[in-house]
């Protein structure tokens, strides 16, 4: 049976992980490769690397990092941050990334989705959507959730699917950082209208929140960052709980 995926997300700046990481026995908590292998050993099903640096050197540093990650990691990983063209994506995929994720650039120029899927296939293209509830409707926001658009979440998600996106990564800006659970109602609504996998993001605080994202939210995968980095949720324990709740989960020995 196809299992639900748990995806730790690593924020990267200038080739290093940025969010504080509380793994006492890591030699270098800022080394994305070491952190990634740790998550992989603990049973992460996939990883996401989001590059948040904005320097000129950025593209080169990220491409080098991807190569190092691919050399070490034997689970799939997605890379995002500042991808605006086929060329941007090509170097990351060529260096071993399995998928790329695009966000604001796709809203600003939706043809980017078609271009990427035509060149690399739908399976490589994750469209990330940041949205926030404004007057009872979910509105897409840009630049890490700072700038509102006039676009409604479901409308944009459907367009992304039609243009060839292989997956939707939906972050609720209302839930992100609250640790009060994922936006399960909105997730369930997306599942109703889409026929591609949906990754839930924003709001993870405990293991039950993941259970809810898969049952109430009917998500295919769930992503979180700080709860994993600070050891508030341990992957083996989370997997065990999901298993007990009869959620199909990949457990490793």
């Amino acid at each position, binding site marked *: *049976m*196809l*299992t*639900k*995926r748990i995806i730790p997300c690593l924020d990267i700046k200038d080739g290093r992980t940025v969010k504080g990481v509380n793994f006492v026995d890591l030699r270098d908590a800022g080394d994305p490769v070491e952190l990634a292998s740790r998550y*992989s050993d603990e049973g992460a*099903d*996939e990883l996401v690397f989001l590059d948040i640096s904005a320097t000129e050197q950025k593209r080169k540093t990220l491409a080098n990092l991807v*190569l190092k990650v*691919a*050399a070490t990691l*034997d*689970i*799939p990983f997605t890379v995002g941050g500042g991808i605006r063209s086929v060329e941007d994506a090509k170097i990351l*995929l*060529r*260096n*071993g*990334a*399995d998928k790329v994720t695009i966000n604001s650039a796709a809203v600003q120029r939706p043809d980017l989705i078609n271009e990427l899927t035509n060149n*690399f*296939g*739908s*399976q*490589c293209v994750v469209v990330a959507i940041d949205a926030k509830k404004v007057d009872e409707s979910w509105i897409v926001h840009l630049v890490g959730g700072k700038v509102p658009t006039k676009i409604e979440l479901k409308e944009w998600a459907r367009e992304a699917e039609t243009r060839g996106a*292989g*997956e939707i990564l939906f972050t609720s800006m209302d839930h992100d950082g609250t640790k009060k659970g994922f936006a399960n109602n909105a997730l369930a609504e997306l599942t109703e209208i*889409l*026929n*591609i*996998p949906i990754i839930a993001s924003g709001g993870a605080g405990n293991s039950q929140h993941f259970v809810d994202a898969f049952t109430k939210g009917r998500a*295919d*995968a769930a992503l979180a960052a700080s709860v994993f980095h600070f050891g508030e949720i341990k992957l083996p324990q989370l997997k065990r709980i999901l298993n007990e709740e009869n959620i199909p989960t*990949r457990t*490793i020995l």
Partner: protein
Amino acid sequence: MNTVIIDYDAGNVKSLQFALERLGVEAQITHNIDSISSADKVVFPGQGEAASAMEKLRSKGLDTLIPKLRQPVLGICLGMQLLCKQTEEGNTQGLGILPSKVKRFPNIVKVPQMGWNTVNHNAEGLFEGITQDCYMYLVHSYFVPITPNTIAQTNYAGAYSVAVQKDNFYGVQFHPEKSSKDGLRLLENFLKF
């Protein structure tokens, strides 16, 4: 031992090369006919769309070469699908090594299937030493039905083939290079043939 990965611009071959490197094998990525013909082991990867992949194989003369190979050949993902006679994807003729017709998943499930699924296998050859109902990582929209060539299967809108074998040709639908320790073991088993 001389192992090659067939190069026809079909997606993520870097990870495959790295996985083989972890097993101590320096695999050459090549579309050179002589290098492929003389290799001890041939890995035939694939990602993306079937019709354009076949077109690329033809443009390099690989469509006539691959069926003639006599050493162990491992098709991965689209590589496995292209070993078949035909695929619904763009109504494309494959290499015809296996008589199967590749079909699209029905829309009662999400397409593509993306993630780790349990694999029920024949416990020998490619799968020697790998736990029954192991998890392998899959990303695909089209599938090979169950046939007499099936050596492993999984369920997604019904049972289908995730590994096939005919003579020296092997195919796996999942990505062994992305399937953690079990995937690496499968590659190791292949390299021992």
